[in-house]
């Protein structure tokens, strides 16, 4: 084998639950972080609008002050928050994370980005992961976010906005893999 280039991705297949299911990882507040506790929940749907029951989602986010628990950030992060979560689809394609609302994170040139959660989706039928960002529809700084404002199509932009559900601090974010309402996915 050669090590001249990166190892290619391959699908997680249908049986990933065996190796990847870590139920405790869907709750990012288990170490008692600072900030506003929220839930992010929704479904993953395929090109027929059918729920995808064999998907795994991972999130990576900053703490309530907008700091990542990582040496590249350099600023001290909340010791009670580590920013990573994983959740499996249930039979209805649903998932749920409990976390804190992230703060604003520096973007290019030091301008602040709007609060967002980075989302990765793996599934049978995905030969490599899909990546998107979850923004919060009720966040005033969205208008000045360089990534959101760089998306020309308003319908595609809307697919990145999680909607607050009534009283409980739960946000709804569906991922549509293909077709009508298809989520805007990123390449970076």
């Amino acid at each position, binding site marked *: *084998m050669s090590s001249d280039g990166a190892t290619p991705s*391959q699908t997680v297949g249908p*049986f990933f639950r*065996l*190796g*990847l299911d870590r139920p405790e990882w869907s709750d990012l507040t288990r170490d008692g972080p600072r900030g506003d506790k929220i839930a992010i929940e929704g479904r993953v749907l395929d090109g027929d609008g059918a729920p*995808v029951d064999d998907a795994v989602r991972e999130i990576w986010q900053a703490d309530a002050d907008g700091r990542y628990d990582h040496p590249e950030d350099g600023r001290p992060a909340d010791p009670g928050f580590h920013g990573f979560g994983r959740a499996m689809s249930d039979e209805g394609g649903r998932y749920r994370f409990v976390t804190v609302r992230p703060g604003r994170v520096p973007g290019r040139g030091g301008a602040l980005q709007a609060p967002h959660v980075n989302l990765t989706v793996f599934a049978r039928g995905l*030969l490599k992961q899909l990546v998107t960002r979850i923004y919060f529809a009720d966040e005033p700084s969205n208008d000045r976010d360089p990534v959101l404002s760089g998306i020309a199509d308003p319908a595609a932009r809307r697919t990145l906005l999680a909607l607050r559900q009534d009283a409980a601090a739960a946000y709804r974010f569906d991922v549509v893999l293909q077709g009508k309402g298809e989520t805007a996915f990123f390449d970076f």
Partner: protein
Amino acid sequence: MSREAYAHPPPGAQPPYLHREYGSTLKRAPSRALLPLEQTLSEITGPRFRAESELVDLTRPAKGEALGQRIIVAGKLIEEGGRPVRSTLVELWQCNAAGRYLHGKDQHDAPLDPNFTGVGRAITNDQGEYRFLTILPGAYPWRNTYNAWRPAHIHFSVFGPAFATRLVTQMYFPGDPLLALDPIYNSVPDEAARRRLVSAYDPALSQAEYALGYRFDVVLRGRESTPFEGRR
């Protein structure tokens, strides 16, 4: 702090989303082009796993012994350019020697092994190395096309230093005649890249009178040479 973005793969080095020969991609591949995103702190940071417990011997559960050919699977996690990736999480899962997963949805008519779960977990050492003792997984049929069989493989999930380096892949075995027929393996257009999915038999890794050794190095995407942000 100087910040370099992670490099993009060259054409053909990664599979596409839509690959007609793999039927499950047809309703799951996005129909629109991905949007280019300039990397920020969000992409060049990523999770760390400080307190993970390891599970590196899959052949000996609490009591009993897994059936099958014992193998040692070991290798290095490196970034393109060769820098070792230390202290990162490697997760693996596989079917048993008969080609059956310990998973409710696996209906293949092959026996389960009560002494084999097929789940492993390791943290790379300071040289980026990992090592598992497991058994050779069997080939198994799948319904992608009539009489289709997946080549023997082990699923790998690795993180690396950043959200941008996250990788889930499959390790295959050298000389497997099913590789030429497998649409998942062959979804990677570039042949040299595809070959990086195949482990190498390594006599030096084999343990005399005990287990065969297969080496599988995982190469994660490396950094570009120019920083996108200077010192702060």
